[in-house]
């Protein structure tokens, strides 16, 4: 089943009176359970694209379909409702609710979506544990480091088991140990069937994906699977790094 589809999606910004095209006719289809990484140089339109997919930015023309429903023609409030039900989003800036604890920030989306308090709590405990944040549950966002806030934002985005996880540079603020936690969690939820579309520069993150979409100047220049190399052969670690 197709979770996400775009048809000839275009975004043109107005810089004074000069039109600046950021996304120029993107056709993208993501099936249920797929993990797609979007890569490309800065200014290639990656962030603009996921922002449109998440309804944070309006499209100039083209179509966005979510779970078989046309999303871009919805009213703002209907779009917001659909988003709350279907999409988990990790922004480059984390947008945590400052007046709530870490635990409440993570549980809120699940509760809004109608999960019972017990289910929401269990899901929150699982996610925060996977991201090494269990000791920070009672903290407020202001007490967290940038890397901690980013991981809380990821937990929040996944709380609801959304149809689609959208993320913009989800490891941008993390050191290598915290990145490893995030990689492991993304791999885990993906194996459990989570559909993921994320923008990243980090090749470790991108290499977890089934498929990589490369953007250049607002257009897709490559879209294909990352091959499994020589499956089943040897498997000895020494085949990967050969020091001889």
């Amino acid at each position, binding site marked *: 089943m197709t979770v996400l589809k775009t048809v000839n999606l275009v975004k043109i910004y107005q810089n004074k009176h000069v039109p600046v095209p950021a996304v120029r006719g993107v056709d993208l289809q993501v099936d249920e359970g797929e993990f797609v990484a979007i890569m490309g140089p800065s200014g290639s339109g990656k962030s603009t694209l996921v922002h449109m997919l998440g309804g944070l930015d309006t499209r100039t023309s083209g179509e966005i379909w979510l779970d078989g429903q046309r999303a871009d023609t919805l009213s703002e409030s209907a779009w917001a409702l659909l988003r709350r039900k279907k999409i988990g989003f990790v922004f480059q800036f984390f947008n945590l609710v400052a007046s709530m604890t870490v635990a409440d920030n993570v549980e809120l989306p699940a509760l809004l979506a109608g999960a019972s308090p017990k289910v929401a709590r269990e899901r929150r405990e699982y996610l925060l544990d996977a991201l090494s944040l269990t000791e920070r549950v009672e903290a407020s966002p202001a007490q967290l480091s940038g890397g901690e806030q980013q991981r809380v934002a990821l937990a929040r985005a996944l709380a609801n088991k959304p149809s689609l996880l959208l993320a913009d540079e989800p490891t941008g603020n993390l050191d290598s140990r915290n990145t490893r936690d995030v990689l492991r969690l993304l791999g885990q939820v993906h194996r459990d069937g989570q559909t993921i579309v994320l923008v990243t520069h980090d090749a470790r993150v991108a*290499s977890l994906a089934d498929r990589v979409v490369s953007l250049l100047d607002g257009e897709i220049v490559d879209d294909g699977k990352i091959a499994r190399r020589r499956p089943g052969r040897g498997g000895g670690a020494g085949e990967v790094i050969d*020091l*001889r």
Partner: protein
Amino acid sequence: MHSANLNVNGYVRNERVTRRWGVRLHLLALLAKEPAHGYELKQALEQTFGTAYPSPNIGQIYVTLGRLEKDGLVRAVDVEQSNRPNKKVYYLTAKGRDSLTDWVDEPTEGPRVRDEFFMKLVLAPLTGIADRMALINRQRRHYLALMRDLNELAERTDQGNQVALLLIEGAMLHLQADLDWLERCQEDLT
């Protein structure tokens, strides 16, 4: 070995010299600590570098030790063993110690500066047999597949083996730099 493999020495410019001298110097370094026989050296390499280092087979170790002996860098003594054939224990000579000191003291070549892919990228389109966009896209997918292997290797590696984990992390950082560079090439050359 296989061309598809990620060869950490591939990041060293003077690859031929390194390949010829690599294992020899590693063995000299181990012998500087204490005399040892071939099998002990093999084990020491495996324990230190873990899964990230494909330990040379025992035959290669003995061939290398033979060469080192011929060049006067190590010497061997026969040690008698009850019930078993004598075993050869190798130790470092003064000349061997000098070679090792030279190796340690001299700056090590930086990451590769001459990149085979880049040569291909610049030259192949001139012949009309490939276009740059396609070459870059294929190379990116290849690097990402290598990165996936490194991810899986890191997962399988004993989390207490810092040496092995750092070796893998180094390979990952090089690969990340290669991908960033590929992006620059795509921006400017296509």
